[in-house]
């Protein structure tokens, strides 16, 4: 008898909260509620990601809607005994506002200013129960579409809504559907692209984990519109929970008659299955993804032919991103007009972003298109972490570009970001503070794409490696005059000549950091100096003799015994031997030791001598 229950405990079990210990919390809640004999009064529900991952583990408790953050196992006793039994919510675990404690989830600033469409139910429903999704109007859009609308009408609705591909490309979804529908070859396939590979991005994973039925319903609507009979969820094996949840959703939908032959007594028959990817970044590219689904090596093909005409097994294939599919049920239910009322002239609706980096509120957010980067980072993201200064933001992961403080007023839509040299990408937003070396950041992303290049075409396979070598030399003090120009020429050629999106976009981080932070590159090359003291070869450590008290701690902690001195003459570092481990900086009781940008004169002399030889 579920009516007997008086409390719903929604425990966020997104991957972030699980790694922070959410499962242990659940065990403890069960244990204590049994002990106090209240286990029959409480529903404990594992939900998908609620969003504010840096506050995890988080939980929301209904009927009050109380929101707890950073809950530890030790806190559970107090929650159960005070809140569950006596009805006194635990104030110290709530969000602490400026002057008051914020008890209710809807009043926490992080959740205000967000508009949730794709993430509407994420963190609110039990993702393993089809009933809960149905209770929140799930599958209504599908059923009314197949019973009351022709495929053409569905496609027209999506065209009118202005929805564009959320995987990064931004191609109008309705137009893509039109191509697939127009092709009369059968059977047709629908593929859900869940090969999310950018470092720092977790939008698709959270959707699949938090609201799998929504993605499945989206796929069914798409399949009905284009006339497909078979669907594939292409999910990487690193997302085991997403795989479990979507498989469970498919199973439940089959049992309910939402998948199978003649769905709802119509001619529409459809079934779906999961294909697991091995985690190659290139498989996010649609032709490579299709090859991988067919059991072949995950390498892209030249386009055309586009998958819409010749995709999986040379049949018409529709490839849509997870978030694109997740938008469909709500668009069909609330109408194209409602959806297109949000956003800008060319970019409609909302977009999910994974906020990460040096900001206060990291996590999963959904905002209307057209809000400024400033609003995203400083209002919703809560601004920079304590005492840090904003330096740049990388949008779109390793394929995207880096923007600066000057670009903060840019509105978030496909065109505006592209004009600034960044891209929407799938929605990863990495915010960086002023301790980050931009050359090193560019090198990091390039290292990723060099690793992930499939090797099929020369510009990407060889060109990226050459760019990487140049960058590597620059960060090691071996940069030469003309390196910047070489990087630009190489980068622009690779963009033009590569076979697929991976190579075409891989030079972006380097080119955009050169454009926006050229002086840092020049400092590395000409002055042999890393201004932020990140590149090990381009800074040195010095002891300030005026501050040094001669305690000898640094000398004793130095693993290569390169610090010598005495109480009277203070201590010095033999620069040539120093390995820059930073031990001395940490142990110094009077903060007399610091990193100084640039090579030390001793090391510079040696380097110059070697070059002359």
């Amino acid at each position, binding site marked *: 008898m579920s009516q007997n229950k008086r409390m*719903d405990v929604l425990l966020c079990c997104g991957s972030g909260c699980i790694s922070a210990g959410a499962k242990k919390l659940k065990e403890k809640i069960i244990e204590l509620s049994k002990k106090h004999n209240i286990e029959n009064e409480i529903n404990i529900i594992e939900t998908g990601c609620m969003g504010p991952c840096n506050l995890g583990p988080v939980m929301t408790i209904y009927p009050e809607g109380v929101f707890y953050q950073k809950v530890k196992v030790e806190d559970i006793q107090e929650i159960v005994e005070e809140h569950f039994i006596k009805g006194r919510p635990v104030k110290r675990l709530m969000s602490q506002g400026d002057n008051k404690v914020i008890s209710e989830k809807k009043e926490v600033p992080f959740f205000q200013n967000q508009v949730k469409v794709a993430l509407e139910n994420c963190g609110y429903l039990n993702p393993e129960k089809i009933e809960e999704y149905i209770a929140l109007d799930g599958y209504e859009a599908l059923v009314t579409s197949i019973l009351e609308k022709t495929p053409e009408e569905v496609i027209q609705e999506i065209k009118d809504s202005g929805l564009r591909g959320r995987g990064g490309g931004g191609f109008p979804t309705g137009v893509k559907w039109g191509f697939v529908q127009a092709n009369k070859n059968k059977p047709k396939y629908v593929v859900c692209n869940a090969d999310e590979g950018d470092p720092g991005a977790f939008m698709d994973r959270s959707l699949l984990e938090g609201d799998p039925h929504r993605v499945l319903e989206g796929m069914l609507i798409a399949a009905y519109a284009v006339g497909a009979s078979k669907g594939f969820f292409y999910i990487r094996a690193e997302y085991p929970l997403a795989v479990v949840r979507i498989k469970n959703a498919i199973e439940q939908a089959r049992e309910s008659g939402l998948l199978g032959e003649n769905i709802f007594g119509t001619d529409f028959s459809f079934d779906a299955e999961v294909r697991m990817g091995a985690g190659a970044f290139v498989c996010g590219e649609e032709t490579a993804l299709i090859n991988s689904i067919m059991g072949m090596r995950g390498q892209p093909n030249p386009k055309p032919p586009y998958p819409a005409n010749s995709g999986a097994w040379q049949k018409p294939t529709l490839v849509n991103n997870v978030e694109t599919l997740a938008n469909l049920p709500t668009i069909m239910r609330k109408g194209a007009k409602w959806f297109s009322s949000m956003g800008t002239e060319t970019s409609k609706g909302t977009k999910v972003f994974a906020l990460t980096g040096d900001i206060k509120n990291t996590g999963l957010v959904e905002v209307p298109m057209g809000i400024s980067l400033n609003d995203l980072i400083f209002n919703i993201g809560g601004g920079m972490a304590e005492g840090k200064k904003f330096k740049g933001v990388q949008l779109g992961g390793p394929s995207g570009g880096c923007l600066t403080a000057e670009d903060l007023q840019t509105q978030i839509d496909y065109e505006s970001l592209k004009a600034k040299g960044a891209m929407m990408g799938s929605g990863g937003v990495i915010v960086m503070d002023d301790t980050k070396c931009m050359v090193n950041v560019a090198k990091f992303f390039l290292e990723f794409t060099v690793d992930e290049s499939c090797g099929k075409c020369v510009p990407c396979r060889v060109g990226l490696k050459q760019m990487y070598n140049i960058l590597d030399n620059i960060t090691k003090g071996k940069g030469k005059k003309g390196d910047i120009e070489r990087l630009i020429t190489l980068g622009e050629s690779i963009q033009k000549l590569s076979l697929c999106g991976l190579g075409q976009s891989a030079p972006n981080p380097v080119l955009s950091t050169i454009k926006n932070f050229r002086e840092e590159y020049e400092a590395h090359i000409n002055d042999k100096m890393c201004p932020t003291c990140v590149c090990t070869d381009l800074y040195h450590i010095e002891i300030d003799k005026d501050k040094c008290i001669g305690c000898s701690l640094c000398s004793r902690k130095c693993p290569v015994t390169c610090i010598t001195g005495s109480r009277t003459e203070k201590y010095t570092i033999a620069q040539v031997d120093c390995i820059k481990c930073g031990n001395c900086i940490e142990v110094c009781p009077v903060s007399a030791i610091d990193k100084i940008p640039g090579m030390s004169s001793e090391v510079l002399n040696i380097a110059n001598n070697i070059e002359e030889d």
Partner: protein
Amino acid sequence: MKTLADLKKIREQAQKNMSLRESNNRIKIVIGMGTSGIAMGAREVMKTFLNELANRKIDDVLVTQTGEKGLSSMEPVVDIIEEGKPTITYGLVNSEKAKRIVSEHIVNGKVIEEFVVEAK
């Protein structure tokens, strides 16, 4: 599932099971669950309310708790909060009285004057 009506039927049932998360309740029953309330049997009273509502298949009433109300001599204390009507506070509630409150007040809308401590 074969028709839209089937879907709606499943939806109605499922919505009942999720009613705790919605805030469209007609009446809120708030039980004082301070130390003295619990000592005087507030937990039994709460269970009675939950069971009684379940037996009668009433799903637009929310049972929740609050802390000490300061009326220790009248514990267990129960508030019946209904929008647009004065909040009724019942005192010295036990299982028997709880059943009567459900049948007379919640179902028939008649305040049981003899149990009332305060109405405001």
